[in-house]
C-alpha cells in the first residue's frame, strides 16, 4: 500500500472509532419524533397517528421517542454527503457509488413526480374524472367533466413513446414537433411581452427626478446610469455598425457595464454555492455529529 493509502486508512480507522464511541454513548445522530394523532374528518373511520420530528432536548417527554428509520436516514444522508465531498480529494469508488445512486434516484424521483402531477392530475383526471375521483383524487371537483380533447395529448404521448420502439421511432417526431411548435408560439409572445417590451418600458425613466423635497440628485443619477448603461450595452450588442469612433466609445462603456454585471453574477453564484456548502457542513456538524448547536435544539442535554 502507498504512503497516501496508509494515511487514509489510518484516518478512516480513527474516524470510525470516534463515531463508534459517540454512538455508543448516545451522543450523536439520533432523530426524535413525537406521534401525533391525525384528526380524521369522516366519522366512523379508523384514525392513525403520524410521526413529527422534534428537537432532541425534548427526549423524555410523553410520546417523544427515537425514530430508528429517520436515524438510519440521517446516517445515510451523512455518508452520502461525505462520499460526494470525497471527490475534492480525487475520483474514487465512494464518489462513483454515490453518483450512481444519485443518477438512479433522481431519474426515478422525477418520473414519479411527472406521473402524479403531469399524467394523473392533468391527463387521467380530464379523461376519466369519475374513475380518478373514486380512487386517486377524491378531492377532484364535481364540476370536472370528461374532456375528450385530452385524447389528443394522450395520442401525442403514445407517439412520443414510439421512440423506444426498434421500428417507427421517427413517428415520435410528430409529438416532438407539436411540443417544439407550441413552445415556440407561446414563448415568442411571452418573451416579446416580458423580456423585450416590458424591459424597454422599465428603462424609460425620468432623468430629472423631482420629489416632495425638490430635485432628487441621487435618484436622478441612478436613473441616468441605468438608461446610459442599457443603451451602451445594447450598442455593444449591435454588430451591424463597426465599433469605431463614438460608437466604439459607447460600446466600450457597455462592456464595462457588462463586466460589472458578470462580476456581480459571479459573486452571487459563488455566494450561493458557499451557502450550500455551509448548509451541508452544518448538517454534518449539527444534525449528525452533534458538535454544534446553533438553533439550541439540544440545549441542556
Amino acid at each position, binding site marked *: 500500500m502507498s504512503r497516501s493509502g496508509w494515511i487514509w486508512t489510518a484516518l478512516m480507522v480513527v474516524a470510525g472509532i470516534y463515531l463508534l464511541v459517540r454512538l455508543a454513548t448516545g451522543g450523536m445522530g439520533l432523530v426524535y419524533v413525537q406521534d401525533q394523532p*391525525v384528526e380524521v*374528518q*369522516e366519522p366512523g373511520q379508523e*384514525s392513525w397517528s403520524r410521526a413529527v420530528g422534534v428537537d432532541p432536548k425534548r427526549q423524555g417527554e410523553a410520546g417523544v421517542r427515537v425514530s430508528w428509520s429517520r436515524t438510519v436516514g440521517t446516517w445515510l444522508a*451523512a455518508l452520502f*454527503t461525505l462520499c*460526494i465531498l470525497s471527490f475534492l480529494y480525487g475520483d474514487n469508488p465512494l464518489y*462513483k*457509488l454515490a453518483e*450512481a*445512486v*444519485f*443518477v*438512479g*434516484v*433522481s*431519474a*426515478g*424521483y422525477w*418520473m*414519479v*413526480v*411527472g*406521473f402524479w402531477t*403531469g399524467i394523473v392530475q*392533468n391527463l387521467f383526471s380530464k379523461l376519466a374524472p369519475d374513475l380518478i375521483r373514486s380512487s386517486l383524487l*377524491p*378531492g377532484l371537483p364535481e364540476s370536472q367533466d370528461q374532456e375528450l380533447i385530452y385524447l389528443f*395529448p394522450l395520442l401525442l404521448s403514445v407517439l412520443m*413513446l414510439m421512440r423506444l420502439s426498434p421500428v417507427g421511432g421517427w413517428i415520435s*417526431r*410528430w409529438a416532438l*414537433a407539436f411540443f*417544439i411548435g*407550441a*413552445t*415556440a*408560439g407561446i*414563448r*415568442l*409572445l411571452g418573451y416579446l411581452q*416580458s*423580456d423585450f417590451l416590458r424591459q424597454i418600458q422599465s428603462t424609460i425613466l425620468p432623468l430629472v427626478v423631482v420629489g416632495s423635497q425638490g430635485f432628487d440628485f441621487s435618484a436622478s443619477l441612478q436613473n441616468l446610469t441605468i438608461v446610459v*448603461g*442599457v443603451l451602451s*450595452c*445594447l450598442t455593444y450588442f449591435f454588430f451591424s455598425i463597426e465599433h469605431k469612433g463614438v460608437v466604439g466609445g459607447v460600446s466600450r462603456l457597455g*462592456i464595462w*457595464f457588462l*463586466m*460589472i*454585471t458578470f*462580476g456581480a*453574477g459571479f*459573486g*452571487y453564484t459563488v*455566494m450561493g*454555492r458557499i451557502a*450550500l456548502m455551509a448548509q*451541508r457542513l452544518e448538517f454534518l456538524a449539527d444534525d449528525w455529529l452533534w458538535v454544534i448547536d446553533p438553533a439550541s435544539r439540544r440545549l441542556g442535554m
Partner: protein
Amino acid sequence: MKRTLPLLIAAVTGFVLIGAHFVPYTQSWGEEAMIWFDILAAIAFILGGANLVRLNLQKISDRRAGWGYAAVTVIAFFLTLVVGMAKMGVHPSAQFPQFAWSGDYVQEGSSFWFIYQYAFYPLGATMFALLACFIASAAFRAFRAKNTEAIILLSTAFIVLVGRTYAGTALTGWMPEALQFDNLTGTIMNVFNLAGNRAITIGIGLGVVSLSLKILLGVDRSYLGTEE
C-alpha cells in the same frame, strides 16, 4: 412524412397559438397548450427513465468497466420508482380516509419522502455545494487583472462577495456610507447590474423571438435530427 409532416405540425401549432392570443375567445388556448406541454414533459421523463435503464442494462450485460455502478443506478431507479408509484407508507388523506390512495405521494414519513429527504436532497445539494470549490479554484487560475475589463469584473465580484458578509460591513464601517461594501453592493446590484441585465434580457427576448420564427418557418430544423 418523416420530415415534412413534423415541420407542418410545428408551424401550424405555433402560428395557431400566436393567432389565438389575439382573439378573445381563444386566448385560453395558450394555457391549455401549457397543460398539454406538462403532460408531454411527464412522458418525456418516462422516455428518459427507459433510456437510462436500457443503457445501464446494456453496460451490465456487456460487463463493461464500471458495470457495478450501472447496477447500483438501475436498483436505485427501480426502488425509487416502485416506492413512489405504489405510494408506500402513505396514509390516506385526513379529508378522505375511506380512499386508500388519497394521500399525498410526498407525505412526511412515507418511503418516497424518506428517499427524497435522506438520499435525493443531500446528494443533489452536496453535488452543487462541491461546485463552490471548483468555481473558486477555476477563478483563481483563470482570472487575471490584466486589463480594465478584468479589473472591473474582479473588483465587482470581490465587493459583492465580501459585501454580503459580516466581514464586509465590519471592514468598511469606517468609510463614507456610500462606499461601505454593503451599500456599494446594493448600488451595484440595483443600478449597474440592473442596467447590464436589462440589456442582456432584451437581447435574449429578441433571440428567442428570432429563433421561434426560424423554427416555425422551417428554417431551423435541428430538432428533427440529422438522420433521414
